[in-house]
Every structure is written in structure tokens, then in C-alpha cells.
């Protein structure tokens, strides 16, 4: 099955939404570190020609042009996988390194070393091999954009 996912028809309605900007509400409502990624952080890293998969980074151009924050939600989902060990949003409760607010370049360099078997690792070399270099860079950007815990 290679066709697109069957998306249910949108329901429409009328009415007024509160005028509070959406991203602010998200942050306020969830009480969590919600990534308000600067567009610059989403500028795609160099493509890894050997990558298993390099889907284009999805961005909403309308969001970028009107100044609202856009999220690389695909990378956000990948990064959420890291949270099982490294804590929700990369805010570890201990034992595993906290990732929130770390420098993206530092995180990427470490994961690339682990992926290549050139850094001490018990399981990270296995997990890092699940992603291309470009994908790891996007995961690193997600954590870098979060506030330090």
C-alpha cells in the first residue's frame, strides 16, 4: 500500500476563536516546554547521500512568512522516541543525559561518533543507526531549541 493515508474530510464551522496567538496558548495550556523553533534552526542540514531516508523537511511557508513559529513535527516525533530514556522533552530525571537546551552541533557530533562506534556507548550506537545524519541533525535541533531543565 503506497497510496496516501485516507484523511477524513474536514469539518467546518463558524464562530470566533479567542484572539490569543495560538503558540502562546499552547505553551500556557500545556505548561510544558513547547518548542518555538526559530526558522533558522530549521534550515536543513547538508544532505547525507548515504542516508536511508531523507524526506524533505516539512515547513509551512505561510507560518514562516507571517512570523509565526513552525515546528519540524516529524523530527519532534523522532525526538519523542528519545524521551523514553532521556525524559519528556529531553528533561531527564537522571541516569541518562539531559538533552534539552544542549548545543545542536555538540549533540549531532556525539550521535555521529556513537553511530560510527567511535564513542563509549551501551545502546546509543544502536539507536543512532536508526537515523540518517540529516535526520539526527533535525533531532538535535529539536532538543537544542528547548529550554534547559
Amino acid at each position: 500500500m503506497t497510496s496516501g493515508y485516507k484523511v477524513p474530510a474536514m469539518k467546518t464551522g463558524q464562530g470566533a476563536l479567542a484572539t490569543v496567538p495560538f503558540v502562546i496558548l499552547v505553551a500556557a495550556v500545556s505548561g510544558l516546554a513547547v518548542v518555538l523553533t526559530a526558522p533558522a534552526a530549521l534550515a536543513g542540514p547538508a544532505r547525507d547521500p548515504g542516508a536511508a531516508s531523507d524526506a524533505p523537511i516539512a515547513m509551512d511557508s505561510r507560518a514562516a512568512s507571517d512570523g509565526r513559529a513552525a515546528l519540524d513535527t516529524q523530527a519532534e516525533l523522532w525526538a519523542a522516541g528519545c524521551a523514553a530514556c532521556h525524559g519528556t522533552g529531553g528533561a531527564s530525571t537522571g541516569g541518562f543525559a539531559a538533552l534539552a537546551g544542549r548545543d545542536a552541533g555538540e549533540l549531532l557530533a556525539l550521535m555521529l561518533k556513537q553511530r560510527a562506534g567511535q564513542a563509549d556507548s551501551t545502546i546509543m550506537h544502536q539507536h543512532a543507526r536508526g537515523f540518517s545524519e540529516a535526520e539526527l541533525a533535525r533531532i538535535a535541533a529539536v532538543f537544542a531549541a528547548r529550554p534547559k531543565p
Partner: protein
Amino acid sequence: MSNARTIDPARRRLLIAGGSAVAATMLPGCGGRSSVLAGRNAPHVVVIGGGFAGATCAKYLRMWSPGTRVTLVERETAFVSCPLSNLVLGGSRDIASLTQRYDGLARHGVQRGTDSATAIDTAARTVRLARGDTLRYDRLVVAPGIDVAPEEVPGLATGMVDGRLLHAWKAGPQTVALRLQLEAMPDGGVFVMHIPRAPYRCPPGPYERACQVAWYFRQHKPRSKVLVLDANDDIVSKKGLFTAAWNTLTPGIVEYRGGQELLEVDAGRRAARLAFGEERADVLNVIPPQRAGAVAAMAGLITANNRWCGIDYRSFESIAAPSVHVIGDAILAAPQMPKSGHMANGHAKVCAHAIAALLEGREPDAEPVIGNTCYSFVTDTQAVHVASVHRYNAEKNTMLVVEGTFGVSPALNDLEGAYAEAWARNIWADTLG
């Protein structure tokens, strides 16, 4: 298709119109702080089951789709972790240390009811609850875990009724009761465990249990034995590591026999009848065959072998019922996808992410990735891991192990004992906190 999350006119309309005309009934015990966006007309997602899958899904839905009302239906008032529960049998942990309340989910605006589903109408999109409420949903997430199926082994169901035979394959009172049976067993006794054919919950779990019981015997009942009878032809997970543990840490205590189909159980005599004779035990622990939890059958979601729920891996939407998703141990998993807490936590995130997209009229991620890590304790301090990464392959319509990601620890070690404890604390917090 766009993966960017922004508010746009279509979403604004959705948030206002909502998907449901009827807001969810407030449940007793609901502690959720209602948000501005998730008002009466907001889309409503009902999650049934508060384990690693369901609780994670409820939390991440609220994080990723704050305009959506999320109601978690769970019959228990507390979460008890299956991971680490074999340490209760080994004696280095108590059940309280594995038990947590659900209060943390309220901070995310998850509404919670201590209740259970009694009927599900996937055409009308309603869930009837034991306490009498009926919930309407726009999307339903079914996360029932496994049910044991003792009726598949003659004598097993009757032996389980009065508590003589314990499976302890759902952490909780049975875990504590099995530990008490081990404590009451005289030195020189035999602990016999039977393992069902895969797939079952937690592939390495039975072998970890053998390690833990042997570790207890070595320290306190050194003349006692552990006999592992496995319906599978060989050790299903981490074979080299478990064999090393039995040979070096508890030499002479554990005997393993593969290819042992269990034909009948006699609870009164604590006897297991096999194709080639009978084994009698001082403590008999039969891990029963398993299937998706009863809620899955109630909703008509079981599609494979009368046991498991077929789903689309991009969203975990059922192949049997639209707008119904199944996550966790209840799914028909692709080959090499274990039924584990870590996987369930990962299913939940893919599912929550997909539901957030679908509620906004977008497609789910076309190529989800789910990682797995399973630690097993071989003593009270040493552990070993198996880990892998699984990626959706559209052409084959399944999850495939990414090359180079599958592997186990090189040896028994203390470092991973510390990591296993840290893993548990972090995934509990990620699931419930």
C-alpha cells in the same frame, strides 16, 4: 502534506466546530484542568487503558493537540510497572516501588475516570462505561494490554481461580503472592515455570524471572532448583546472555528445556503434564497463552489468529474499524517487534502524533520510526539489554528493523543495571508525569 504545525484557517474552524456535538461526560475522579481550547466543542479522544501505551498516548495527545479533549479510562487507581517486577520475586524490590498514581496526567489536562468500558459502538462512536456514563468520541484509542488465556491449557483455569496457580504476568497482587510462595518453599524445592509460545508479553521476561528466582535461591535456598519448560524450541531472547548468567552466577540451579508443549496442569498436585512425562513442582508458575485485552474483542478489533489487532503502522488505526486506534501489546506486531513497555510507549507517540495530524486534516507521518530497549536484570544489580530501531516501509506495509540497530549487551554488567534503573524512572515519568 505538511508536517508543520501552525494554526491556519482550517484548524481554526476545526477547533471551533469540534468533531463531536456532545462533550464527554465528566467522570468521577476527573482531575484534569480544562484548557481554553479544549472546550465543550473540542474534538474528543477517548483512551481506554492506562498502561505504558494508553497513558503515554493521552499525555502526548494533550501536548501535541492542545485543542483536543482527552479522556483516559482506566479501571485501576494506580499504575504498576511490569518492567522491574521480576525483582520483587528476586527480593530486591517491593511492589510499592513499582506503583504510581495517575495524578501526573492531570497536569497535562487529561481527564481521567477510574472505570471500565462495557460496550463499544464503533458506528455510533460511543463507549459505555461500567459506572453508567456513555462517552462519545471522535477518535478512540484502545490500549488494553494482554489478557491471559488459561482456558487454552486444560486444568489451568481451574487452578488459577483459587489462587493456587499464579501467573504474575501482570505486575500487582499476583507478583507479591508468587514471592510469598517462593518464601514459603522449603530449601531443596523446585520452582517450575512454563513459557507459552511466542508472541507473548515481554519476550525476555521469563528468562529474567528464572535469573531472579535462581538468584534468590542461591542466597537463601541453595539446594533448590529452577526448571524452565519452554513451549518455544529455544530461548526466545538474549540466549547467550541468559545462558551465561545461569552458568556463571547461579551454577547448577537453573535447568532449561525447550520444545515443551504444556498439555495439562494439575493444580492440586502442582504438576505439569508434557508430551514426555510429568514435572512436579513445589512452586508452579505457568505463564498462560495470551491475547489482546478483552476491550479489543468488545470493539471487534481482533483480526489475527483470534488474538491480536491488525493496525496501520503509520497511525495505529485499526484495519477493522475506522477512527479506532490500537496500541501496545494488543497489536499484531511486525516480526521482531517485541511486546514491551518501551515499544508501547513508542506506539503511543506515533499514534498521538497521527491523531493530532488527522484531527487537523493532515496526513500522518509517512514513515514512522520506533525504537526499543529492553533491560533484563540477571542479579539484583547486573543487567543486560536488547535494543533495535524499527522503521515503516511503505512498499511492504510493515515495520522493518533498520540495519545495524539490532543488538544485545556484549556481556553481563553492572553499568547497565544502573541504566536499567534510570530507564525505568525516565519512562515512568515520560508515561505518567
